[in-house]
């Protein structure tokens, strides 16, 4: 039904496949979804993503949507945000969630891990100064607990502060009382999350079969 459409765009898809690592079928399906979301236009806007009902009860939806429009995630060394994205950029953002291939070497795995953690880091570091400050981290935890109501805010602060303390202890070891820990840099971020094995966790399944018509 939907799979054969890809044949007509093959040269374009081939380039995209090479760039992002998706298969042709997957690209076809994602393209279909893209068109569905953007109402058949070429560019996708924030408002289009806002309308997805599944995202409505997600506590971090704003961050997720922002991540799609964040130039740092487009692998083109840009920064800042854009108002609308093309399919290629959509695909590049999605490619962060591809699982690593079975026969990867340790270095390739490390590269994949860095890429995924970089995506997460960009989501937290909203002002793009290369560090996650205490305020930004607090904001993250608050959003996560935002559905708990008033209770969440005070404990969120406590939790974020404790987390920050932990990072500081692990990364810096010892600090004088009057030194100041600026914020979590990307290297520190890598260090504290190295035990999570993010390359096995931060993946979703990209289907080769078309099920987008089943969902809204």
């Amino acid at each position, binding site marked *: 039904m939907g799979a054969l459409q890809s044949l007509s765009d093959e040269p374009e898809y081939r380039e995209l496949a090479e760039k992002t690592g998706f298969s042709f079928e997957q690209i076809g399906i994602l393209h279909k979804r893209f068109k569905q*979301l953007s109402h058949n236009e070429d560019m996708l806007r924030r408002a289009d993503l806002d309308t997805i009902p599944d995202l409505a009860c997600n506590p971090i939806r704003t961050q997720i949507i922002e991540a799609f429009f964040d130039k740092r995630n487009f692998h083109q060394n840009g920064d800042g945000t854009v108002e609308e994205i093309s399919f290629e950029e959509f695909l590049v953002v999605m490619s962060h969630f591809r699982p690593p291939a079975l026969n990867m070497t340790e270095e390739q795995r490390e590269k994949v891990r860095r890429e995924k953690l970089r995506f997460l880091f960009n989501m937290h570091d909203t002002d793009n100064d290369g560090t996650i400050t*205490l305020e930004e981290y607090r904001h993250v935890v608050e959003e996560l607990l935002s559905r708990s109501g*008033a209770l969440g805010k*005070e404990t969120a602060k406590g939790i974020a502060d404790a987390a920050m303390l932990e990072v500081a202890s692990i990364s810096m070891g010892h600090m004088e009382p009057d030194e100041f820990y600026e914020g979590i840099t990307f290297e520190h971020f890598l260090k*504290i999350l190295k035990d999570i094995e993010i390359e096995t966790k931060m993946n979703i399944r990209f289907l080769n079969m078309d*099920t987008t018509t089943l969902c809204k």
Partner: protein
Amino acid sequence: MSVHALRKSASSSCSNILVVFVGIGLPIEASAPAYQSHGTEGSHLTNITNTKKAFPVLAVNYEHVRKPFEIALWILLALLMKLGFHLIPRLSAVVPESCLLIVVGLLVGGLIKVIGEEPPVLDSQLFFLCLLPPIILDAGYFLPIRPFTENVGTILVFAVIGTLWNAFFMGGLLYALCQIESVGLSGVDLLACLLFGSIVSAVDPVAVLAVFEEIHINELVHILVFGESLLNDAVTVVLYNLFEEFSKVGTVTVLDVFLGVVCFFVVSLGGVLVGAIYGFLAAFTSRFTSHTRVIEPLFVFLYSYMAYLSSEMFHLSGIMALIACGVVMRPYVEANISHKSYTTIKYFLKMWSSVSETLIFIFLGVSTVAGPHAWNWTFVITTVILCLVSRVLGVIGLTFIINKFRIVKLTKKDQFIVAYGGLRGAIAFSLGYLLSNSHQMRNLFLTAIITVIFFTVFVQGMTIRPLVELLAVKKKKESKPSINEEIHTEFLDHLLTGVEGVCGHYGHYHWKEKLNRFNKTYVKRWLIAGENFKEPELIAFYRKMELKQAIMMVESGQLPSVLPSTISMQNIQPRAIPRVSKKREEEIRRILRANLQNNKQKMRSRSYSRHTLFDADEEDNVSEVRLRKTKMEMERRMSHYLTVPANRESPRPGVRRVSFPTVHFEQPSPPSTPDAVSLEEEEEEEVPKRPSLKADIEGPRGNASDNHQGELDYQRLARCLSDPGPNKDKEDDDPFMSC
């Protein structure tokens, strides 16, 4: 090697298990109490005058206590053995405990035989009703849910299809073997072979637990093998009953096969359903136990045992019922019960499962000596080889198929460990033992089963550890719970659910999210006492961590190294702190001292290792230490505040009315920096008990809620101290400055 005739009489009666051992050693005569008549018929009165003996000051009556005495002695012996192993340092590092225990059993059995008595055999009823449930409950209650649910598809495929494959492959090839004339077993028909295959094909949870506990392999492989060993019980039960029935009849029809398949679904789903029902009952009961804390653990144990027995009653899968019960009840029960009850449950489960495991292995050894045996070289050797071969083929074949559906594929190393870790154990033996004597091949089967068990436990059990080292298989990461990891795990969950939503397909995370929401809105409301059900997981985790730190402090007498005292909130936020007037300071100190007396903690910690438990008993010590710690912090902070000059305008002290019962809480504006966060941390655990803080504030509270009020007050105070001042845009006569 057949002591057939001798044993037959003893083996029939179930209660004769522990008959002999002690009876040999003690030359006892049950001496009669004085008033018993000595042979003459007639009235009691005449008897008394007839035979008057001296009043027995000391008499021995062994029969009176025989049964419990022997049981207790066996258990004591088993535990002393276990103790002995761990005292020999190098032995326990090389040889897994299960092997040592079997050897001990062999020795004991040999000893008994030498004396001339009949060694007791591992009675199946005892095994299935008393020895197995504690182990399974322990495994089920502490089952790590996240990896289990993530891999449940793979586990099910291995458990169901893998076991079926093993059973049929082995049964079929053994039948083919028996057809060969030279073997001398031509009397064995296909059904008997298939029955044998089904008994010996199932991976045993007890053996797997015993061996894998010691090698600390990575979570994925551990849960795969372990989950498989638990879930294949349904298949084993169905196949066993099926073939047992058929081999009596002799023929199989298509209808029978169809019924068998239906039976499988009934057995497994029925077992899970029974377990879930009892689990919900237990959770519901625990909601009301706040006034009778002492008996809380009993509810957990009894409901689970009832679940097991009920499902065994209907020939459903008892193991799956027990697992389902434990898994279902755990989150709710843990939210309801007290800290001490939790510790009790944990300790009791570990203790019972440890004792059971020890006894099982010793009895296996003893039963081996007891026989009966019928040795046939070809059959037995072939069985062992086929076991290995079918396991390896099964795992490789299934992984090939499974990998197409998995996001994270199983590597060759993973496959090897899964295949090699498929140990057989006491369940196979008991099932074989249960075979009625009408099977002419029963003894041969038993011998073969025992050989397979010995082979897997000894050879595979001992070599798996060096192999794991050799192949450099990933081990379990011994990491402390890190709050960053926890935050990010939750963050990832939501992120992936969101991205799935964008992609437009309902995947794994979508359904998980739906289940969570359903759980939160409907289920938790009924099953969790008080207001706790609203508490998000992250907060619970945070409290856990905090308490753990406090407890570590109690034990080691200093702050734990994760948070060295050199780095504190000051390093993260060196904003200036405002001055507090002397009078204020005194008032604060006084109130603090009063309130800090009422600390109460709850502690939860994760553990599913057999041998290590987190020691969490010193509740009182903990509160005292925390008191001291917080006091120290407060003092330190006080002095710091008072000495560090504020480089902001000093706040208007008049605004800070420390009137506790009427304090308001408001969200601080971003620039404000509560500095005494470490203090807040200590009392965080009480906060969730009162989700709406405003409601608490009206009026002074007494008695039971004193604790909570104390915490809240303390917290507010902490904020009061740390906040730089009223917001610029707030009114002067705000009753209390914003925190």
